[in-house]
């Protein structure tokens, strides 16, 4: 295992993190920022899960054959709870955006900033 294959998932998580981060910074729409952060987060999930992978191993469910090698379940556990936590935190972020929409009538960060400037004396 040399060359590109040795780091295959690493390139994917790098790409996902960067795409997500770009969206979170560059896109003025607040919902789009939340989606971007979600993608950033899944990039980190790919990093963790690929750490747990071993060539020649199988899913960590006991097979009965004592020679079986299993994938490392620790990253799996960390990430499966993180996925459920991520949907919960996304829901809180979305409800904050609902309140922002109610207060400002828009969900674009630049328009909100403009409204804030207008309000100042």
């Amino acid at each position, binding site marked *: *295992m040399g060359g590109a294959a*040795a*780091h*295959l*998932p690493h390139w*994917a998580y*790098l790409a*996902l*993190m*960067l*795409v997500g*981060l770009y969206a979170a*910074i*560059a896109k003025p729409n*607040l*919902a*789009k920022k939340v*989606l*971007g952060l979600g*993608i950033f987060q*899944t990039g980190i*999930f*790919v990093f963790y*899960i690929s750490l747990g*992978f071993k*060539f020649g*191993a199988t*899913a*960590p*469910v*006991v097979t009965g054959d*004592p020679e079986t090698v299993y*994938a*490392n*379940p*620790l*990253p*799996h*556990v*960390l*990430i*499966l*709870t993180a*996925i*459920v936590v991520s*949907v*919960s*935190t*996304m*829901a*809180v972020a*979305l*409800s904050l955006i*609902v*309140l922002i*929409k*109610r207060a*400002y*009538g828009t969900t*674009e960060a630049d328009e909100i900033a403009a409204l804030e400037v207008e309000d100042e004396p």
Partner: protein
Amino acid sequence: MNELALLAGLLALVVATAVGTVQARNLYAATILLGIYSLLMALTWTLLHAVDVAFTEASVGAGVSTILLFAALVRIGGRETENQSNLHLPALLLVLLLGGLLAYGLEDAPAFGDPDAPVHRRAAAFYTSLESYHLSHSKNLATPVLASYRGYDTLFETAVIFTAGLAMILLLRKESAGSPAEAEEIAEDPPAAEPDAVDPGRSARLLGRPGGAPRDLGRHPVLSKVCKTVVPFVVVFGLYVITHGELGPGGGFQGGVIIAAAFVLVALVFGLPRARQFLPRAWSDALAGVGVLVYAGVGLTTMALGGTYLEYARLALDPEHPAGGQTLGMTLVEMGVGVTVAAVMATIFSEMVED
């Protein structure tokens, strides 16, 4: 080698979908793309032998979060404004700089799939040994890590989910139970009358409530029949997944989400009031806390029995076989997790669609 080619293909699709999600101007389209992204992710997890994660991703990512985003978009509007330049140069430079640094750091990362990587030594070597199986009697080697060895971690993850549900209630719930005058005052408060403001009746219509012209999907013969047939099985399957986390992929997190999915399905087809007949608001509010209390209570019980916090071996009915205590303890905390997750997911969904 075939596996690697498949993985490369899947990851390429995943990255392409992520770019599509970010670029889509229509946020409904972005949400659908994100759902596809999640399904591709679930396949990737399976290929990487993370079956429990795949299970969670399929139920949460492709199911609950898609519905939740739709419900939010109905309220906040589904289009980005057009008056923006396509490229944000400072962000691009920052992202490229970070990417360069991380790529440079990859030089030193252990090769993908190396069975001797540092991450597989020490405690992890125990987690994948048959010793762990004999200690916990859990065929699924991920479950004892989740519910037993890292039980504190999972307890607080559950508390975070509970807190998120609480935050949703505090942010979005109206005090309809308050005095009638107060309720009227809220009702008179007009929504922002922007030209592009979202029609407030839309979400009501989505749920077929008397407020708007009811869509009433429940009258659609195919939908109502399928929904009525499927829902009991979904609930039973959810309970099975919660209680059989030791035998195969599954556990409280996945099972809880599956049960909440049954609630969401009933709400989508027959309206939220109908779904609330199965799970009244007061019940879901209480159950969200009960799950955490069950989990924390198991820890206090083991302490009362003379052990340390969450030392399940103390729960063994037969002291000669502490594995029985492990099974009992893990099943109990998985049930606690399942109850909290199901209740909070139902709360999150209903607070988001109710206006």
